[in-house]
């Protein structure tokens, strides 16, 4: 059969984000896949070297459009570590609640993309609606729907508004009430099973070797979560579990995402119950005169896509000397995707890609 070269993206209906894959196909079978990043390169890491510590705070969130919150968190953590800033106890809880909300929101958004790709339009619309409800919560808390610009060095930018606790609980209950609907129409749907079972399968050892993190790794049965391994914020103060699956295929990954959402919602309820009162912000020094002592820091958080790390060097000046992000989509999108697409059918490209949760802006920093 004749070998063909097929361009998948960046302008392709099945492609999410500014990203492209070049496929070498023979009939319906993919012989080789090459990921082409760079369509969204904005030079964030370089830009950050030119801005002061506080000016970077509204910038970092823009690295990941879908889930900006963990970017804020990892930046705040790195600055706090370098400058030795204490964070009030309540701020830790507020941060955790906020980050878990972000995880729920991000997973719902991912579910929308995935269901849409598979043709489950109803489920996609539900997910989008519920994602919007989470955005409403963010808007109420931070004033922004997409870029919240909320976690900053020293704590968070504003405390919960009045009655916000109840609002979170109500919203999460109304989303949680639809879980049976989601299960009946999507997760337990034989069509979903048929399309995903044993597709894009990766073994645990291989996943580890290729640097998989997050759901991709947990779907192979590995209980690895930075929130457990290296607890930050208030994750150590409540009881929760890391959901895993064994098979390492698309089906397992989607189920991990579903379970994780539910676990996050339970965690938020527990965090809200235990939340102490007090301040949420320890004032950082005057931004025009803020020099951070010489040093370097590596911090990591568990974003909704997996381990998100930040390496930052300060030269004792008012700006970072070097910033480097270790983003989960980088390994997932450039290495594991290429590997999993080999021998897959063309119809499964989107299927595998979205199940890996690749977000293009994370790759092009």
């Amino acid at each position, binding site marked *: 059969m004749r070998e063909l070269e097929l361009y998948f993206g960046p302008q392709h209906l099945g492609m999410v984000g500014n990203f492209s894959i070049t496929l070498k196909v023979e009939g319906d079978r993919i012989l080789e896949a090459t990921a082409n990043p760079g369509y969204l390169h904005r030079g964030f890491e370089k830009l950050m070297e030119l801005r002061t510590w506080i000016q970077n705070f509204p910038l970092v969130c823009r690295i990941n459009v879908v889930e900006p919150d963990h970017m804020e968190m990892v930046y705040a953590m790195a600055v706090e570590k370098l400058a030795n800033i204490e964070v009030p106890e309540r701020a830790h809880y507020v941060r955790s609640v906020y980050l878990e909300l972000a995880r729920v929101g991000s997973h719902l958004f991912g579910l929308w993309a995935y269901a849409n790709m598979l043709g489950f339009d109803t489920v996609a619309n539900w997910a989008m609606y519920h994602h919007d409800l989470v955005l409403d919560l963010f808007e109420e808390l*931070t*004033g922004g729907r997409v*870029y919240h610009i909320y976690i900053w060095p020293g704590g968070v930018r504003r405390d919960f508004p009045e009655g916000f606790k109840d609002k979170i609980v109500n919203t999460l209950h109304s989303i949680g009430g639809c879980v049976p609907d989601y299960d009946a129409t999507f997760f337990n749907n034989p069509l979903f099973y048929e399309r995903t079972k044993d597709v894009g399968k990766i073994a645990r050892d291989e996943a580890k070797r290729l640097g998989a993190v997050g759901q991709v790794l947990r779907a192979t049965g590995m209980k690895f979560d930075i929130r457990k391994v290296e607890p930050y914020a208030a994750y150590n103060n409540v009881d929760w579990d890391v959901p895993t699956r064994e098979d390492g295929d698309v089906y397992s990954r989607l189920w991990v995402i579903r379970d994780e959402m539910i676990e996050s919602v339970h965690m938020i309820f527990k965090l809200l119950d235990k939340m102490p009162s007090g301040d949420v912000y320890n004032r950082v020094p*005057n931004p*025009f005169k803020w020099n951070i002592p010489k040093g370097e820091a590596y911090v990591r958080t568990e974003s909704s896509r997996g381990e998100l790390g930040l390496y930052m060097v300060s030269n004792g000046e008012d700006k970072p000397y070097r910033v480097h992000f270790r983003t989960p989509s980088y390994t997932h999108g450039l290495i594991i995707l290429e590997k999993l697409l080999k021998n897959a059918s063309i119809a499964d490209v989107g299927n595998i890609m979205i199940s890996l949760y690749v977000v293009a802006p994370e790759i092009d920093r």
Partner: protein
Amino acid sequence: MTKKSKINKGSFLDPFKAIRFLWKKPKTLRYPFEPKEPALRCRGFHLNDWDKCTGCGNCADICPNEAITMVEIPELKSKPEEGIKNERPKLDYGRCCFCGLCIDICPPGSLRLSRDYFHIHFKTDTFSFIPKDEKSDKENFLPAEKYSVLKASLTHRKKDYEGFASDLKYSLFEPEQVPMPHVKPEERKLSFIEQVIGYNKEEAKKEASRCLECKLCEEACPAHLKISDYILAIYEDKPQESLKKIFEDNPIPSICGRICMKHCEEACSLSIRGEAVAVRWLKRYVADTIKDYKTTLELEPARPSGKKVAVIGAGPGGLSVAYFLRLKGHEVTVFDSLPGGGGMVRIGPPLYRLPIEAIDKDVNHIASMGVEFKFNTTVGKDILFENIMKDYNAVYLGIGTTLSRSTKVKNAEKCLLALNFLQENKIGKEEKVGKEIIVIGGGNVAMDVAREALRLQHMQYPDQEVITKTVSLEDWDIMPAKKDEIEEAKEEGIQFNPAWGPKEVVLDEKGNVKGLLCMKVKSVFDEQGKFAPSFHEDKEMFLGGDMIIEAIGQATDFSFIPKELFEKFEFTERRKVKVDGNGQTSISKVFAGGDIVNLNLDAVTAIADAKIAAEGIDKHLSS
């Protein structure tokens, strides 16, 4: 499909479950008939209250995208002494990312974000505009009942639509000063110990770190010291650099660091919602930290010019003009009737505010530069003014106001005069005071007199009940003394009787002071704003006291100038010596500055005058 599904395929009736959704309401909003109401903290377009905005430009400095530029608004007035510039931020929404850092840095809290988040217009330049407050901007803001999405899309926004606003708790600047350690009131009223202890290195650095570098203070300072530069040097732990910056405009930092009237702190943008940066104490920190100015400054007088300048009066103005002229290479001689330098600051501010050593540090440095001081020399008595005019190429009059005014009420001659009282105590012998003292006046001198008198009372009558009270024409709201001065006086137990005017000093049979009869004040100023007190003649009050000190103001003593020369002097309407832009009086050789020229009557304004006069004299001598 080869794979076998393990999942139960379910009943064929399952799809009918969807019927229940028929009775649910749609989730989507039908825009524009149902516009979405934004959250209360929504970060939309900017609002700026022009009345509160000071034009400090901190928003423009912090903006990560350089979306804000400060634009001069000609119809607004700059008021440097209040710290207000006629500049307002202009927003470029092609750059703005709505992060709101400008809101959190805004010191007056005038800049806020509205809850308007969309903007459609035929003209592209409307995307960049100078935000105003919704209350003052009638053109762009509509009341809720007139609001529609169509109108809103043409830059008409809804009134009272305030979103993300500033909150002091989360501000990016520190609103509170590092507390200055003071000697406690109970302790300090027993002696003349210096009340303010002074910042240590850590405290000074922390206080210096609060400065936002907006430089409103530099415009407010009469002498335009480079305040933000020398504060930055303190923050960077380079007090030497800081001292060099200070000396460019002010050669007496040790004095000014203690008694300056701090116009800068009134203009400080942080003072609007918090406390101003303690500029004066930071200057004092630098002056106190550096033991020897001369080795730090590394400044030497220029090549000798061969010209001689006489400076009459070794007050702040005289000292400054002598220093600046000496640097230019002129030979300077300073005449003063007091035994040391400092002039009014030597006798006026009590020892607990300005110790003699602090004054001498500055004076000795100026003397070490080669300025000749002739103390205990009264011009007109020990040396004639005519001779000075003959022997010197230029003369600077920095004579200040050395005569205390009297109320001239009945028996006023039995009262003491403020300056005599202060001078005697500070550089003469300690005065015997009464147990119940009345101080007439509500200005800073009156506060000094009252607080000094209280200390003397406590020292002379230990463990006895003593009272010091003040009487002033002005009520609390217009009392001319500085607020903190009044507060400290209150802390020490001084009683105030505001809005009472003296009518008569009451004497007992032996002719000793028994008390003061007062009248209630109707108003202090007339309609033109001139000082013309009027009284309720029928409302009287008697204040008992065995000693009365008058501290109601001072006048200048021109008696040393010969009559025919004095007649040549021109005066302004407010009875001040008229000088031109070079500090030159109507007599070409004579320059003047300080309290006899300006209305501020303080040390830093005298330094400002001296700076101008020094340039003027130099120009005069080299022409």
